[in-house]
C-alpha cells in the first residue's frame, strides 16, 4: 500500500474517531457538522469543505463549513441546471470547472467561487444536501469526487444520526415542556402565567423566538403581544404561525421564528402549544362565567331577603303593632275583670309574637345592616351575643352586596363560636386595607372542631365568599381554638 494511501486511511480513521466521539457526546448539531467539514478539509489537504442542505423545491442552505466562503445560514434559490439542482436530481457527484458556464454562476461569484465539486448526501427518503469543495481559481483536482464520496458515507451516517438524535432530543424536550404547561393549565394558573410558560417552553425547545399575540381591534396593529420569549433571530429565519381560537372565533396567534439551521419546526408541533393556550383561555372563561353565575344566584337570594324583610315590616309586623295597640286600649277600657283578664292574655301573646317576629326579621336581614352598614350590623350582632366580644372595626360604608356577605360571614362564625366553642370570650375584627381588601376575623380560644364539611353554614359562606373572588380560611384545633378568616376584595364594578 502506498504511503499516501496509508496516510489517508489513517487520517480517515482518525476523522471517523473524532466524529464518533462527538456523536457519542451531547454536543449541539452544528458542532458535529462543522467538525465533519474540518475533518473532510484535512483529508483534502486543507481545501475548504462546505455542507449545504436542500430545502424543496429549490432552496439550498449552508449548514456548516470549514474554510469556505459561504457563511452558515445563508440561503439561496437555485435555478434549473445549476450545480445543486444537478446533484439533487442525478444523485451523483457533479463537477463545475468554470462557473461562468453555469446558470448559478451569478449566485457564487460574490463569494469568489470559480470552480467546485459537490457530492450528494443521502438520507432515508432522498437527498439531504451536498458536500462540496470550491476554489477561487482553477478546477479542482481530478480525484476530489472520489475522496469526497468516501467521506460522504460517513457524513450520511453522522447527519442521519444527528438528525435522529436531534429529533429525539427535541421530541423529549417538547413532551416535557408540553407536560409542564399542561399542568399549569390543569391547576388553573393565571392566564399571564400560562402565556409566559408557553412562550418560554417553546423558545427553549425550538431554540427560537416565540411570540404570543392577542387580537384587539381597538389597537393600531389589530393585536397586542401578551408574551414573548427567546432572542430575536437576525437575517435568515423561518416563521411558523398557528392561530388560536376561542369560542369558534379568532383569539390570537402563536408565532415561532427560528434561524435557518438544520431541522425545521413543524406547524403541528407549535399547534400543541397553541392548543394548551386555547384550553387555558377556555378554562378561565368558564371559571369566570361560573363565578358570575354563583354571584347572580347569591344576589338574587339577598334581594329576596330584602323583599321579605320589607314585606314583613310593612305587613305582618305592622298588623301585630296594630293588634297590640288595640289590645292595650281595650285593656284600659275594660271594666269587667274577666274581660280585662282575657284581653291581658291576648296582649301577652301578641307582644311575644311581635318580639319573635322581630328576632326572625333580624336574622333574615337586620335593619341596622341595611341602614347603618356593616359596622352597625356587626355591633348590633355582637349586642345579641350571649358572651362578651372584643371588637375591632376599621371600615367605611361598602357596596351593599359586600356588606351583606361580610355580615352573614361574621354572623355565622359568631353563632358557631357561641354554640360550639365553649369559649368565654370572642374576638371579632373587620378591617379594610389600603389595597381594597376587606379582612374579617372571628376567633376564640375554645375547643376547636370547626369544620367546613360539618353542616352547611360554613359551606354556604365559602360559596358566598368565592363568588366575590374572596378566600375563606378555617384554622381550628383543640389546642388553639378556632380562627375563621375571610378576605374579600372590594370590586370596583359592584352594584
Amino acid at each position, binding site marked *: 500500500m502506498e504511503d499516501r494511501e496509508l496516510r489517508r486511511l489513517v487520517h480517515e480513521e482518525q476523522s471517523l474517531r473524532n466524529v464518533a466521539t462527538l456523536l457519542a457526546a451531547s454536543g449541539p448539531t452544528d458542532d458535529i457538522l462543522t467538525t465533519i467539514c474540518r475533518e473532510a478539509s484535512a483529508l483534502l489537504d486543507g481545501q475548504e469543505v462546505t455542507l449545504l442542505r436542500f430545502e424543496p423545491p429549490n432552496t439550498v442552505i449552508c449548514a456548516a463549513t470549514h474554510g469556505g466562503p459561504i457563511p452558515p445560514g445563508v440561503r439561496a434559490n437555485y435555478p434549473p441546471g445549476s450545480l445543486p439542482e444537478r446533484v439533487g436530481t442525478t444523485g451523483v457527484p457533479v463537477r463545475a470547472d468554470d462557473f461562468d458556464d453555469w446558470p448559478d454562476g451569478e449566485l457564487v461569484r460574490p463569494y469568489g467561487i470559480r470552480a467546485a465539486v459537490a457530492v450528494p448526501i443521502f438520507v432515508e427518503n432522498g437527498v439531504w444536501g451536498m458536500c462540496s469543495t470550491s476554489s477561487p481559481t482553477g478546477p479542482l483536482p481530478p480525484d476530489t469526487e472520489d475522496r469526497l464520496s468516501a467521506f460522504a458515507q460517513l457524513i450520511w451516517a453522522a447527519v442521519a444520526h444527528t438528525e435522529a438524535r436531534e429529533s429525539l432530543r427535541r421530541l423529549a424536550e417538547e413532551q416535557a415542556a408540553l407536560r409542564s404547561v399542561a399542568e399549569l393549565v390543569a391547576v388553573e394558573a393565571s392566564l399571564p402565567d400560562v402565556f409566559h410558560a408557553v412562550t418560554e417552553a417553546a423558545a427553549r425547545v425550538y431554540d427560537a423566538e416565540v411570540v404570543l399575540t392577542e387580537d384587539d381591534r381597538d389597537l393600531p396593529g389589530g393585536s397586542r403581544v401578551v408574551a414573548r420569549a427567546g432572542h430575536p433571530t437576525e437575517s435568515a429565519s423561518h416563521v411558523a404561525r398557528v392561530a388560536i381560537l376561542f369560542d369558534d372565533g379568532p383569539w390570537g396567534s402563536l408565532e415561532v421564528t427560528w434561524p435557518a439551521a438544520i431541522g425545521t419546526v413543524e406547524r403541528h408541533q407549535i399547534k400543541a402549544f397553541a392548543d394548551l393556550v386555547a384550553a387555558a383561555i377556555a378554562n378561565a372563561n368558564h371559571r369566570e362565567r361560573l363565578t358570575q353565575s354563583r354571584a347572580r344566584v347569591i344576589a338574587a337570594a339577598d334581594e329576596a331577603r330584602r323583599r321579605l324583610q320589607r314585606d314583613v315590616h310593612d305587613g305582618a309586623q305592622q298588623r301585630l303593632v296594630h293588634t297590640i295597640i288595640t289590645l292595650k286600649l281595650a285593656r284600659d277600657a275594660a271594666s269587667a275583670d274577666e274581660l280585662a283578664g282575657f284581653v291581658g292574655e291576648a296582649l301577652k301573646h301578641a307582644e311575644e309574637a311581635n318580639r319573635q317576629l322581630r328576632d326572625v326579621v333580624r336574622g333574615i336581614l337586620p*335593619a341596622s345592616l341595611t341602614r347603618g352598614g356593616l359596622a352597625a350590623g356587626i355591633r348590633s350582632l355582637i349586642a345579641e351575643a350571649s358572651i362578651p366580644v372584643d371588637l375591632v372595626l376599621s371600615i367605611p360604608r361598602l357596596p351593599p352586596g359586600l356588606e351583606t356577605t361580610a355580615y352573614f360571614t361574621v354572623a355565622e362564625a359568631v353563632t358557631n363560636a357561641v354554640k360550639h366553642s365553649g369559649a368565654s370570650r370572642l374576638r371579632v375584627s373587620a378591617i379594610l386595607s389600603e389595597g381594597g381588601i376587606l379582612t374579617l376575623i372571628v376567633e376564640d380560644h375554645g375547643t376547636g372542631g370547626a369544620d367546613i364539611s360539618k353542616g352547611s353554614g360554613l359551606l354556604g359562606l365559602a360559596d358566598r365568599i368565592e363568588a366575590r373572588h374572596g378566600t375563606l380560611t378555617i384554622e381550628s384545633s383543640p389546642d388553639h381554638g378556632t380562627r375563621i378568616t375571610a378576605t374579600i376584595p372590594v370590586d370596583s364594578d359592584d352594584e
Partner: protein
Amino acid sequence: MDSSVAQPVRVCVGEDDVLLRKGVVQVLGDAGLVVVAQAGDASELVKLALAYRPDVVVIDIAMPPHRGDDGLLAAIGLRKQIPGMGVVVLTQYDEPDYALALIDERVEGAGYLLKERVGDVREFTDAVVRVAHGGSALDPTIVARMMRPHHVPQALGLLTEREYAVLKAMAEGMSNVGIARALLISNAAVEKHVTAIFRKLDLAPETTGHRRVQAVLRYFTTQRS
C-alpha cells in the same frame, strides 16, 4: 309627670299608616294635647311643622316618598332648623344603635319609641309631653337591650335591684318625679338612689334632666364600643 301645664302641648303627627295615625291622634287628643296638623309623608310633614311651629313632632321613621329613612331624616332636619322643637320618632326596630344615632349629641327634646308603645297610653303621652318640654324619651325595651349584663359586667353587678330599675328609668328620660311615680317610691328615695348609682358607676353626678340622660347614655355607648 302632669299634663296640666298652662297651655296645652301642640303636636304635629307624621304617619303613613292611616290606622296608626288615627290612633296616635286620638290618644294624644284624649290626653289633652292639641294635634295642630297631621301628614302621611315626610315632606308634607316638614312643611306643616315649619308653618305651625308645634312644641313637638311625632313622626314615623319610615315614611314615603322613599320609605327608607325619610321620616328620620325629616326629624333630624327639623331638629337642626328649629332647635327648641321636640321630636319623637316611632319605629318598629328596637335597635339601640339607631336610637343613639338619632339622639347623637343632643339628648334634649329627642325621643325614640317603639310603635306599640302608643297603646301604653299613659307612658306614651307622658313621653311626648316630656319631649315637648325639652326632656328625652327612650323606649324601655331599647334601654333594656342596652343594659344587658355581659356588656357592663362589673359595674352593673354593684347596683341593687332598685338602683338598676332607677338607672333604667333615667336612661328612658324620666325625671325624678316620674321615676318616683313609676316605681311607687318617694322622691327622696329616688334622689338617694340616683346619687348611689352615679357613685357606683364612677360618673360625675348630674342632677338635671338632659345632662343626666346624656351621661347615662354615653356611659352605655362607651361600654359597648
